[in-house]
């Protein structure tokens, strides 16, 4: 009789343990599925490091560069050699995750191909956080754009943290009108594509995680144009890892 009771107790214990393990496994599997779905849609884009250095305010910094494009749709992205994200939304490419070196003079180039309407907040029409407080648009240095002349912004800022250096950069990208011709600085100016080329530089601090996003509401009709591309990660928002 004792043996039967003992066997029964062991079975109960084993079945309880198995149940707990199964429960944890079910929750864990769903969690990791969501984790996978949340992963970066593209591989990170690493900035190209240069052997050159630059001295600013008496301090020497190594140089690095990265090139992005902002495309109104998948077709335009494909035309310029970029395999776009799943949805046919406006989007930055080739990656929403940039990896930049720490304590470096970074030069970013953004090829912008989209139209636009008006910024909600004119503040984001200003160039902020770049070297000299300016950006170069198709060869001309400017420090701001009118709020009705911005197609998108590339706005980099920190996540709430007291353990990393602050970093804030805001660059408005000018609207592309019919006949506008952007140029590729390294190629033949003025003849390459319908759009604009915007170049700017900033200096990174220490290692840390940052996010970037567009401050021009360019989603679809939902959420007052903050839906779709604006609320789906990896289109008009992403992250920057300074390493």
């Amino acid at each position, binding site marked *: 009789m004792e043996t039967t009771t003992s066997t029964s107790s062991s079975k*109960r214990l084993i*079945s*309880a343990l198995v*149940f*707990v393990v199964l*429960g*944890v496994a*079910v*929750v864990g599997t*769903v*969690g990791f599925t*969501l*984790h996978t*779905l*949340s*992963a970066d849609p593209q591989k990170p884009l690493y900035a190209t490091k240069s052997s050159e250095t630059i001295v600013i305010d008496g301090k020497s910094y190594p140089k690095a560069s990265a090139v992005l494009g902002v495309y109104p749709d998948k077709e335009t992205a494909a035309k310029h050699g970029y395999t776009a994200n799943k949805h046919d939304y406006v989007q930055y490419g080739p990656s929403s995750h940039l990896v930049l070196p720490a304590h470096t003079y970074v030069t970013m180039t953004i090829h912008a191909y989209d139209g636009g309407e008006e910024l909600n907040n004119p503040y984001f029409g200003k160039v902020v956080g770049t070297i000299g407080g300016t950006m170069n648009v198709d060869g001309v240095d400017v420090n701001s754009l009118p709020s009705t002349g911005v197609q998108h912004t590339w706005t980099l800022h920190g*996540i*709430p*943290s*007291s*353990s990393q250096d602050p970093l804030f950069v805001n660059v408005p990208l000018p609207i592309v009108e019919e006949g506008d011709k952007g140029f590729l600085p390294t190629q033949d100016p003025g003849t390459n594509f319908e759009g604009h080329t915007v170049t700017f530089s900033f200096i990174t601090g220490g290692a840390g*995680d940052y996010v970037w996003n567009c401050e021009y509401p360019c989603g679809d*009709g*939902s*959420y*007052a144009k*903050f*839906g*779709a591309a604006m*609320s*789906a*990660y990896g289109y008009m928002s992403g992250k920057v890892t300074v390493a």
Partner: protein
Amino acid sequence: MTTLHSTSTHSRPIPNPAKSLITKLNMGTGVVVGVIFAFATYFAFRPAADASGFYNQQNKALLGAMLMWSVGFLIGIGAFIGPFRWLIGKDLTAEEQLYLAGDGQGIKRYFKYCTDHKVVGIQYLVGVTTMLAVGGGMAMMIRTSLAVPGGHFIGATIYNSLVGLHGITMIVAMIIVATGPFGNYIMPIMIGARDMAFPRLNALSWWVLFTAIPVLCSAWFLGGIPTGWTAYAPLSIQAGPGMNSFIGTILIFAVSTAVAGMNITATVIAMRAKGMKWNRVPIFVIGATMSVALAIPAFPTFMLAMVQTATDRVFNTGFYDANVGGSGWLYAHLFWIMGHPEVYVILLPGIAILMEIAPVFVRKPLFSYNAAIMGFAGIAGLSVLVWAHHMYISGWTPTLNGPFMVTTEMISVPTGLLFLVMLGTIWRGKPWMKLPMLGLFAVMWNLLIGGITGIYLSDVPADNYLHGSMFVTAHFHYTLMGAALTGAVAGLAYWFPKMTGRMLNEPAGYISFWFTQIGFQVLFLGMFIAGAEGQPRRVVSFAAMYKYTNMISTAGAYLVGTGFIVLLWAVIHSWRKGVIAPQNPWGAKTLEWTVPYPVPLENFDEAPIITSDPYGYGKGN
């Protein structure tokens, strides 16, 4: 409780409803008809990709499909056969009514439109357990994502949807967690009734609720519910197609609660056994009735809020759109006129269960039955006058903040009465420390913390700082989970023998209890600290200064999760293989313990007559 008639069983004729349609309808036919209705509606209204007003039309098609799914399911399962037959002058025969009651159908009756209140009670129990498990699983993922700063585990979009879905799933489950299973299974027997006042409506309330579950789940495939469970306008007006799932769920759920609330209220008023005067009604019945009676006026406002949200989304009516003369405050009012009474709709049955348990396990009469009634009535009455304390910082009529602060703080008086009743009952008693009794002590601790922190939040200056922080999240979890859910679990442990015929596995119950209660304190005390330091709620990424409190909270959440998995195992295992329960394992005096298991179809073969109150312990009767 003394009765003059003892119960006995006798055999019933096996019903033979011949080839009536009702014998062929079940959950399967309901699903088929519901899906057909849903797809037909969607394809009838779906917009062309380039249609003007695409989003309005898409909302119309999706919401219409969801509501027609519910209607189709109910037709398919046979919910309207009775009324239809009555309308055409061919009312159901006695045999068909007996068949509808599930007599002699074994486990199949749980998948049919069954009018037996005990079947409906079990359906609610299984449904609520499933919803709590799903909602709890989502809570685990939320806490995992919040374990470290940066929100790396789950992306922000999915996190927002998880928070919204966790919230609404748990709120729906908690509203019915006690009145669903125990209000349906136990309450009619407790008052000596043969069934509910309206058995068909009783079945309808469950199956209507059932149809809301797939509608809520559809949110996952439509982009989620990114507004949180409050679904504030104009966010909800501008949100994507997943918002239709939220609206559909609430519209369907409101019908279910209205039907259930009216039925329970009518049953308690009209179906009590002879001699069961109001001062002899078991306290759980009083608490449950107060709860559902409170829900009857409260929930229609939420339903109205959702109807207006739907018309704003489909027809651009602009109720909540300030651009065309609407107001977001209108939504906030309608929501919180439901939202705060809803807290007490959830809480009162949980407290009432513990008041039912305390005299049984201390072997003393309930301390001041009248004070308990006054406590319940005071809370129910005041709870409809406090809603705007959720809107202190919204800017709506700041001059009314003071009056709302007063009414809110006044609720602590009737709440204190309930505490007094529980304390007085166990005072100088020798508690029989079984699992239900442990629940009583846990709830008194949790409700104390939930109540005191609620006073801070009702205070206008303090709320200016704490509003929207994790402090609020911890506070309402202490009341809803720490008190109401723990009370419901204590009720499950108490009535499990009557509902299943078996005893709940005690060792597993104790393990579950200590895991959940210790984990709960770790989880939410940590959250109080984070909230008091300023961590905002509903935000996926938080500052490094909150990392330790969040890590501690997540560790507590894992303990709670483990405890609930153990409880789930205990319930399933005990239901299948547990020790056979005696008819009255606790030696309680209420009527449900006078009937055998399985409880006969009409509960009592001879109607009981009540001659004393149900808590005459230590009085020699």
